[in-house]
């Protein structure tokens, strides 16, 4: 127990005294997972909307693949991404293994199926006649998708939370493709693993607390937006 109190105390001190490395690790976590989530949104929302609005052969296959992707273990994705990014691998020419970009790529692959699937469900839950009504009001296809997403924004915000939550708390893929390099690719989760194996348990707990507070704050903001629009 005292190790936990020690950890809480240390977390507090680290934050109050503004330990540079801690801030840097926290910031990198936020940036890497934030960019990964946003890029996943940029792909997943249009993709999910498209799948939710159209019917074509092979659609069910694609949807079930995406739903399977929701459950694929991050370490497997980490392994595949790192093998692809090896210097002598198929994408080695990019020279991005052990960089934040590689971590972003892995995290996009992790969060994309989640966001796509949530979007698909959100759009499908809408009354199909709503599309006709929106088109009848004179909407172009883009305007229609925009309005439908606006209608489905509660589940879509849930998609953002689920996607972001999955990547910021993920460690396996991040350590494999990022390498946990101090000052470069060390994020909260990989730092926690590292500090734990170094025996710095109180620092590991401090980092865990920061991670939890961070996840909580992001979800709190999104929940505020979600619930406010609902009550307004």
């Amino acid at each position, binding site marked *: 127990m005292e190790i936990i109190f020690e950890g809480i105390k240390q977390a507090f001190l680290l934050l109050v005294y503004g330990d540079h490395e801690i801030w840097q690790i926290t910031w990198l976590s936020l940036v890497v997972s934030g960019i990964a989530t946003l890029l996943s949104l940029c792909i997943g929302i249009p993709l999910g909307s498209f799948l939710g609005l159209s019917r074509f052969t092979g659609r069910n296959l694609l949807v079930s693949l995406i739903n399977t992707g929701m459950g694929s273990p991050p370490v497997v994705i980490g392994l595949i991404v790192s093998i692809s990014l090896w210097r002598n691998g198929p994408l080695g020419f990019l020279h991005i293994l052990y960089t934040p970009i590689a971590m972003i790529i892995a995290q996009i692959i992790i969060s994309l199926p989640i966001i796509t699937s949530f979007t698909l469900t959100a759009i499908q839950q809408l009354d199909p006649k709503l599309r006709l009504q929106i088109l009848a009001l004179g909407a172009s296809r883009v305007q229609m998708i925009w309005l439908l997403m606006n209608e489905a924004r509660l589940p879509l915000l849930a998609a953002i939370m689920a996607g972001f939550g999955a990547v910021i708390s993920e460690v396996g893929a991040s350590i494999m493709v990022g390498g946990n390099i101090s000052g470069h690719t060390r994020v909260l989760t990989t730092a926690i693993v590292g500090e734990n194996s*170094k025996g710095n348990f109180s620092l590991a707990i401090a980092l865990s607390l920061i991670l939890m507070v961070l996840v909580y704050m992001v979800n709190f903001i999104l929940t505020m937006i979600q619930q406010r629009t609902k009550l307004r």
Partner: protein
Amino acid sequence: MIGYVIFMKKVSGFIGILWVFAIGFTLGAAQAKQKEIILATTTSTQDCGLLDLLIPIFEKKTGYFVKTIAVGSGQAMAMGQRGEADVLLVHSPESEERFMAEGSGINRRLVMHNDFIIVGTPEDPAGIKGMKSSSEAFRKIAALGIYISRGDNSGTDVKERSIWKAAGINPQGQRWYQQTGLGMGQTLNVAAEKRAYTLTDRGTYLTLQKHLGLSILVEGDAALANTYRIIEVNPDKWQKVNAQGAKAFSDFMVSKKIQKIIKDFGKDRYGSPLFFPDAFKDEKLKMKN
């Protein structure tokens, strides 16, 4: 609706900022490309904090950017064999010799040593405390104790297997023999929790000592020597290897100044040094590995 549109405008602004970051990262990565070295190393050198001390000195001096990938010696050499690392800092002499023999590495140099120790719960159910022979001690553990193994093909793991071999015991599949597949630090934690025995490098043990409640039971056997060597990955085999950087790092590790730092590392915190610099000793004079 209107509120939402405003919100989305704010979000778009935020996305813009993040894109700038992303582009910054990309450019940074592209720039780092020529100046970066991938160092694949054993977890012990990372976990004890030695590399955290040395690498910034190296980076400041040379302008190279070192990406330290801390894995077991076995995996570090596997990375070297595929040309996925530039320079290796490892402690698994037999595997190293094979690595050199197949032409994967060049310029293998001794950097430092410390020793392996057998640690265990202070109650010592197998009664190995003070024994001089590691293989004898292993036989007793096999009979009366629980042994926690890394099982990850790291330098420590390879060393442990050689001792079992010397003891004439095949521990695989035995009930008293458990493999963690984790790094040294975590394996020590598991051993402490299970009141078991394990083989560890002295450095990691000293770093974690205060949390563990494990005692040093066997030490000083010549068979327990733990030597760290630096190997540059053969650039003739893999053209993408940063040969210059690897050479620079290798030279740096055996330089006088760094060897002095290694000699003093850990004295202030643990009372005794964690490593003994070896670069200026004749290979033949040092402990037989």
